[in-house]
């Protein structure tokens, strides 16, 4: 699965992408095509290389270095098509030859910058030979045409064009010059063809370098942490969701960071309405994606178990699947999770408010059954629910919810967040906190209606 596909389904990832200062179109393309890395060894490598670039960024001297590299990267065009034409043995025209020359010069500039700063981790090919072929007058600038110095006759033909006595004569010399130019283009293309692999590799490496620097800059400016590979646990300390945090910051609020440990077993999370359960799931999903797309993480500490798939059942997907009710969409997603679990795929399953749209009796049964299945297949699953009396045995956590320590201040819908404690506590009861009515009170719902609801609870 590519970053682009994921990003289109996940607003949190899009926000991160928009923050990346990618300099070139090849860098942007590279990032969008980045695969979701599932292999532990490859992930470790990716993190190591990124951390090396970060160390390198943190040095004082890095500003000019990064600036210089950025300037060169910024000018690189995607010459993939031209390289393909070259490798197929086609004769390149002036525009394509110019592209090769400019690319080789920029590539060489960047490599020189890197080597000057003792940075050798990413291997690059030396393209000086390519530059030599396209720079017969040794100008060292990225301009190009069929220079007269390529062939002694060419200079002569061109002079004759200017000095010709008649229009017909001019046309004749022009025709001769054109033929010779075409011959030279063919020779140049042939000479360059042997370098197509070197050009291709450098194009890929430069795209990779652009992506790495952008990721590193993000990690440094945002003070993100280097994630570690987990074997049997995932552990987050002060994890946050960047785009949700950005929204909160606009109204001068803060995201309460999440501390959580996850294992290869289901975990049931309960909590009042508005206690941030959905955001919790989205944050964990985002962290898992970022980790496996090779980013540092928005947390103080992070140990993450790699998975093969992150599977969701998080509301508001109804519109995406035409004609299916929300329950149908949900149950198909759940089934997908179960099938994957049975198949032995390593997954992270995130399920929000399972079976909330069906009747509570059946709902509870479905939740219990799902938890049992997740237990049986040892799936790292986070399930949120409102239902009391879910009997299946599993780890349970509760969002603390409304706190009373600021009792003097009047709670209203706008400052409700200030009274919410979003932290998670382990619990062993199958009863969920009863805060729905309190929150309804805060929203100043019709009193008669509330009284009636309270009566109903006493009756039960």
């Amino acid at each position, binding site marked *: 699965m590519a970053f682009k596909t994921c990003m289109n389904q996940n607003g949190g990832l899009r926000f991160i992408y928009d923050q990346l200062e990618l300099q070139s*179109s090849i860098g942007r393309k590279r990032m969008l095509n980045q695969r979701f890395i599932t292999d532990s060894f490859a992930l470790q490598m990716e993190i190591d290389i990124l951390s090396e670039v970060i160390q390198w960024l943190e040095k004082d001297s890095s500003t000019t270095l990064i600036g210089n590299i950025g300037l060169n990267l910024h000018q690189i*065009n*995607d010459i993939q098509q031209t390289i393909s034409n070259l490798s197929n043995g086609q004769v390149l*025209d*002036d*525009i394509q030859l*110019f*592209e090769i020359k*400019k690319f080789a010069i920029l590539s060489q500039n960047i490599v020189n910058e890197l080597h000057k700063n003792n940075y050798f981790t990413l291997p690059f090919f030396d393209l000086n030979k390519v530059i030599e072929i396209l720079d017969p007058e040794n100008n060292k600038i*990225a*301009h*190009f*045409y*069929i220079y007269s110095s390529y062939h002694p006759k060419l200079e002569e033909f*061109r002079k004759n*064009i*200017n000095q010709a006595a008649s229009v017909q004569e001019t046309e004749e010399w022009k025709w001769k*010059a054109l033929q010779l130019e075409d011959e030279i283009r063919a020779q140049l293309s042939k000479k360059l063809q042997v370098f197509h692999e070197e050009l291709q590799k450098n194009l890929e490496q430069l795209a990779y370098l652009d992506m790495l620097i952008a990721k590193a800059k993000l990690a440094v400016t945002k003070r993100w942490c280097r994630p570690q590979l987990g074997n049997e646990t995932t552990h987050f300390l002060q994890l946050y969701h960047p785009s949700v945090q950005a929204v909160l910051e606009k109204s001068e609020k803060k995201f309460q960071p999440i501390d959580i440990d996850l294992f290869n077993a289901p975990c049931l999370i309960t909590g009042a309405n508005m206690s941030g359960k959905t955001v919790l799931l989205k944050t964990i999903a985002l962290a898992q994606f970022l980790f496996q797309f090779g980013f540092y993480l928005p947390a103080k500490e992070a140990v993450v178990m790699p998975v093969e798939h992150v599977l969701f059942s998080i509301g508001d997907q109804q519109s995406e699947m035409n004609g299916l009710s929300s329950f149908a969409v949900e149950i198909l997603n759940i089934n997908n999770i179960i099938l994957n679990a049975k198949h032995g795929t390593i997954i992270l399953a995130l399920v929000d408010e399972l079976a909330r749209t069906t009747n509570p009796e059946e709902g509870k049964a479905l939740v219990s059954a799902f938890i049992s299945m997740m237990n049986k297949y040892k799936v790292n699953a986070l399930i949120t629910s409102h239902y009391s009396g879910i009997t299946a045995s599993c780890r349970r956590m509760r969002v603390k919810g409304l706190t009373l320590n600021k009792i003097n201040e009047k709670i209203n819908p706008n400052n409700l967040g200030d009274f919410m404690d979003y932290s998670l506590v382990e619990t062993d009861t199958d009863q969920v906190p009863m805060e729905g009515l309190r929150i309804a009170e805060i929203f100043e719902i019709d009193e008669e209606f509330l009284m009636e609801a309270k009566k109903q609870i006493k009756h039960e």
Partner: protein
Amino acid sequence: MSFLQNILQNQSVSIVGMEKNTGKTECMNYIIRSLENKGKVIAVTSIGIDGEGLDQVTNTHKPEIELMENMIFVTSEKHYREKKLTSEILNISEQQTSLGRLVTAQVKQRGKVIISGPTTTLWLKQMISEMPSYGADITLVDGALSRKSLGSPSVTQSMILTTGAALSPNLSELVRKTKFVFHLINIEQFIHPLSSQMIAIENGIWAIDDTDGLHDLEIPSTLLLEKYKDRLFRFGMTLFVSGIITDKILDLLRLQKNIKNTVLIVKDFTKIFVSPESLNAFLKKGGKIKVLLKTKLMAVCVNPTSPEGYVLDSNKLRDSLSETLGVPVYDVFQMNE
């Protein structure tokens, strides 16, 4: 000050033809030949045309221009490949036009080439600002009064307008029409913190509210105004049309009761395709019209010969135009001789 000295006061000059065959190409060629003798490096580009294939079909309004050694030019990949001169490529854009990317090159051996250019105002502005880094002293922009042009020639420092018998074989009619365009060129500029943001907008009709908020009115085209009339005044009476305006919108606005507070903003005068009658009625009723980009009209060049063969008296034509407009008027065909 002579015509050429006047031109050299500027870093960029656009040459805008009121009609085909008003001598725009001749004017351009004349300037190029004359400046070459003065040892100046000239860069040439053009306003891109919307819609592919248009050039190939009509092929009349995109004539080849003769360029001399050392001149810089910007044109599309397609036209670069068709060039009849030798030139060194200096750069290639990443952005695409319908005729391919834009190639910046320097002439090594003189010859002819078709010039095409950036398709947006911002891109044109950026291109013009890059030219000095290639050694250009002055940039000439080939512009047109066409519904198909997207960019605005008004990003240049000064402008030359070409007019002539092709517009009308009747002298007073020709003067009247030219005067109308002259009025459009002199429409007041809208100076506002939002203007640079507005220049970048390529689609739709927008409104600026009392707190300087910019809102897309979600009206797909001025052609559909009647249908979406209720949306027009949701955010007040300051409206911005990113494309062209026609009589239709002026007439509609004129009939509203709050016409006196209406301010209609367009990108520049080349986006105004209205009849003098509609514009006058709109202005008389109290409506205001403003432009985001405004440039100084430096001179008017005339071609007294129409393609059908009518010939106006060059002296008479120049005199009555310069008297009406108050700017220098030249006949480049006579200046050649």
